């Protein structure tokens, strides 16, 4: 027979949870300071390590070092860029979106939020973001989602994010078992009261950008394919620019490191792992 916990124990645990929830939700105004200005601040040429223009339909991966910034920008038109990442020193540690949304009490990632690994550590800080319209739930396209969506246009032959990730993972010495759930940047997906997904095209425009600061050494993979919920019946992803920018150490009052109690504890886990 199962022995249940006492009412006092349950009440104490509930009170503790409600306090965590209150602190987490009360932090929202600081964690979400608003959208970054457009156009993006210019970057001194001598701070640019590399600039890659990923053509529509294609993939790219790069190593990044802690504190470097990846600026991802739609300067050639609309597109969705799907992103995955692994800890460079131990690729069994990878992007974990369920933890990212759960510990920050929101599916809405925007300037001020951080992105977690499966090991309770921070992989990225969203240090600038001009649109705040990204998708953590649905992820990238697949051969079958393309086949359904572009039935009259040779859909199965069009490049898709799942296959792109298999390719880039394999070239990094990994395989399909290592591909985590993907973050889709510039994918304006919203959820209604019944849980149904909606695409809100007005939330993303040409010129939008996101600056992601790497908070550990990583391998980062990108796929530039139309999001499966993008209603555009034409397969027409524009090139996306990824600029890798030299590191500067974050200040003591860095927004993302101090925005919420959860971010603070995540960075404590990073610091401990780096000892």
């Amino acid at each position, binding site marked *: 027979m199962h022995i249940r916990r006492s009412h006092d124990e349950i009440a104490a645990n509930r009170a503790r*949870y409600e306090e965590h929830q209150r602190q987490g939700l009360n932090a929202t105004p600081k964690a979400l300071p608003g959208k970054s200005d457009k156009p993006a601040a210019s970057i001194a040429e001598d701070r640019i390590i590399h600039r890659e223009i990923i053509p529509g339909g294609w993939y790219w991966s790069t190593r990044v070092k802690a504190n470097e910034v990846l600026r991802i920008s739609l300067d050639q038109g609309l597109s969705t860029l799907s992103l995955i990442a692994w800890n460079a020193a131990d690729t069994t540690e990878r992007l974990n979106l*369920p933890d990212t949304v759960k*510990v920050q009490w929101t599916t809405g990632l925007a300037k001020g939020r951080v992105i977690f690994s499966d090991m309770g550590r921070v992989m990225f800080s969203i240090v600038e973001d001009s649109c705040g319209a990204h998708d953590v739930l649905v992820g990238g396209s697949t051969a079958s989602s393309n086949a359904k969506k572009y039935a009259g246009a040779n859909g199965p032959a069009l490049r898709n994010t799942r296959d792109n990730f298999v390719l880039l993972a394999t070239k990094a010495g990994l395989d399909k078992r290592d591909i985590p759930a993907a973050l889709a940047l510039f994918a304006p997906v919203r959820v*209604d*009261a019944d*849980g*149904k997904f909606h695409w809100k095209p007005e939330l993303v425009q040409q010129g939008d950008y996101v600056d992601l600061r790497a908070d550990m050494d990583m391998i980062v993979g990108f796929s530039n394919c139309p999001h499966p919920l993008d209603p555009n019946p034409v397969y027409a992803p524009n090139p996306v620019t990824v600029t890798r920018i030299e590191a500067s150490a974050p200040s003591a009052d860095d927004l993302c490191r101090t925005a919420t109690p959860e971010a603070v504890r995540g960075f404590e886990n990073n610091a401990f792992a780096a000892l």
Partner: protein
Amino acid sequence: MTQFVQTSSARTLTNAVQDHYIPAEAPFSTVVKKGQILRIEDSYGQQAIDTLFYNAQDFSERYSSQDTMREQGAAYISTGTKIISSEGRVMAVMTADTCGRHDTSAGACSCESNTVRFGHYTKYLHACRDNFVLEVSKHGMSKRDVVPNINFFMNVPIEPSGEMTIVDGISAPGDYVELKAEMDLLLVISNCPQINNPCNGFDPTPVRVLVWEGEDA
């Protein structure tokens, strides 16, 4: 919203081909053959049942929460939901649901995420990912094979603003879901031990798993 589908009277406890009792907080796995009907019962009510599926012939094909949500066009799963694999194939179809609210966005608890969410002092508490890793290790898999899962009976409403919190489950004692296997499946369960949030009313309880032969076999 609950869509109750009457379970078949041809299935009784005496003609089940598998009947398992999973203690509170424990891991579990079994193989469910194509065409069989799987029932997962929340015996005491308000218990989150963290669940993963693998193709029993090729474990590299496994449950995909993102593909499943995309296929539904919605974040929650219920009767009629197709459980989609990482290869885009239907692994199972949900054929009955007496509860109506199940999550596949919030993933499983882990010692590591608990430290972030609830404080470092919660690190040394039994957690779902440890259950999953122990259970999949019996089948030659490891942490890299533990992917975002389904949380049957876990209530995680997502607001139009994006805000999400885990709130009290709405399942009553004896509530169940049924799924028809569309391929031979390795079913892996962590009967969630979390006591820091209300996913199981701060009081983990046992659950039951039953399997029947399909009626159209």
